[in-house]
């Protein structure tokens, strides 16, 4: 059995990792100056392993410090940096440059359907307002001494919808939400689904009642934009369909 020793020949000097220049088209909006959002292009030197978020950081740190965007954990968990990249809603921190067509400019803009505040930042309040409306918290009358027990099967029933990080990529990709913002939106329904199908929760009929509304699940047109946009791979359209079924035939 051989182990690495100091005698082994030194590794050849590593070839420099190739970089390339990418044109980033960012949709800028400064509410104090601009009447309308405008596109601005930046040339950024990047590695293939860089993400869109790294490109935005490079712009902000090296070229234009006024570029405004949200990001927090930068690893696809907090859900702060959902944006529209090349016309698709995704997380900037989970989109690798090598997966995009870098021969063309990369278009980055704020998510649609929510009021634009500045550059890539939107007002998330309408989104969270409809999230709050579905009562996304456990409601149980019993007060057990220990934890509330649940079988693995019961837990698996709503496992998919526990993955939501509230990034708004789904809701802001929904054409029904774009039209007038009255629709609850996929994210709120996903989070209602998470409690409706939780065996420990007792208020599922209340939530089903809320979603059985003029602006509730029935406005869903099953365009699947939400399922495609979800950075966590949640089957959003299926969750909405399950809520529709639960309203019609009761929970199963």
């Amino acid at each position, binding site marked *: 059995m051989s182990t690495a020793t100091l005698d082994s020949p030194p590794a050849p000097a590593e070839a420099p990792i190739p970089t390339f220049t990418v044109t980033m088209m960012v*949709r800028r909006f400064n509410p104090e100056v601009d009447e*309308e*959002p405008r*596109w601005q292009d930046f040339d950024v030197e990047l590695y293939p392993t860089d993400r869109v978020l790294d490109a935005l950081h490079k712009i902000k740190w090296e070229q234009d410090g006024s570029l405004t965007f949200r990001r927090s954990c930068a690893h696809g968990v907090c859900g702060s940096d959902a944006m529209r990249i*090349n*016309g698709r809603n995704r997380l900037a921190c989970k989109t690798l440059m090598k997966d995009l067509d870098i021969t063309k400019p990369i*278009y980055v*803009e704020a998510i*649609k*359907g*929510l*009021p*634009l505040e500045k550059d890539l930042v939107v007002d998330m*309040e*309408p989104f969270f*307002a*409809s999230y709050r*409306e579905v009562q996304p918290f456990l409601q149980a009358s019993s007060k057990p001494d220990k934890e509330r027990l649940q079988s693995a099967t019961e837990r698996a029933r709503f496992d998919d919808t526990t993955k939501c990080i509230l990034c708004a990529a789904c809701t802001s990709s929904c*054409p*029904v*939400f*774009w*039209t*007038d*913002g*009255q629709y609850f939106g996929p994210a709120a329904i996903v989070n209602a689904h998470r409690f409706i199908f939780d065996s420990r929760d007792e208020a599922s009929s209340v939530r089903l*009642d*809320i979603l*059985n*509304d*003029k*602006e*509730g699940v*029935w*406005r869903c047109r099953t365009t699947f934009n939400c399922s495609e946009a979800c950075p966590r791979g949640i089957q959003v359209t299926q969750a909405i369909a399950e809520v*529709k079924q639960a*309203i*019609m035939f009761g929970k199963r």
Partner: protein
Amino acid sequence: MSTIIESPRQPQQRASKGRVNWEKYGWIYMRASGVLLIILIFGHLFVNLVQGDGIKAIDFAFVAGKYATPFWQIWDVVMLWLAMIHGSNGMRTIVNDYASNPTVRRILLGALLVAAAVLIVLGTLVVFTFDPCSTLIPADQALSFCPVP
């Protein structure tokens, strides 16, 4: 790519509780009538265009023959009602999605309601009051079994 989608209004107050929720029944109706319409429309097309002499068989006498039987009267009336309501309801959802101006929306929805109601009433009337020997038909085109005036 740079299509501007206007910022929506803040969410409005949800409809008060206790009212009948028509959206749910509308949604169920669209599915149920859709399945029935597939059978009714393709049955209609087969009988009219494929069976027997096919398309060459269609003339006034063919239609008169169909409307002489209650089976085809019911078939056509059910098809008319289901299709008209199905289509108008679909148009209604499109209007709700795209007409953001409340006045425009009300006008469009009203026009849809009137168009659907008029066509349904007119169609139903035609099917049940159809008279193959109407005196309005010129004598040289009248069907053979009709009494000569």
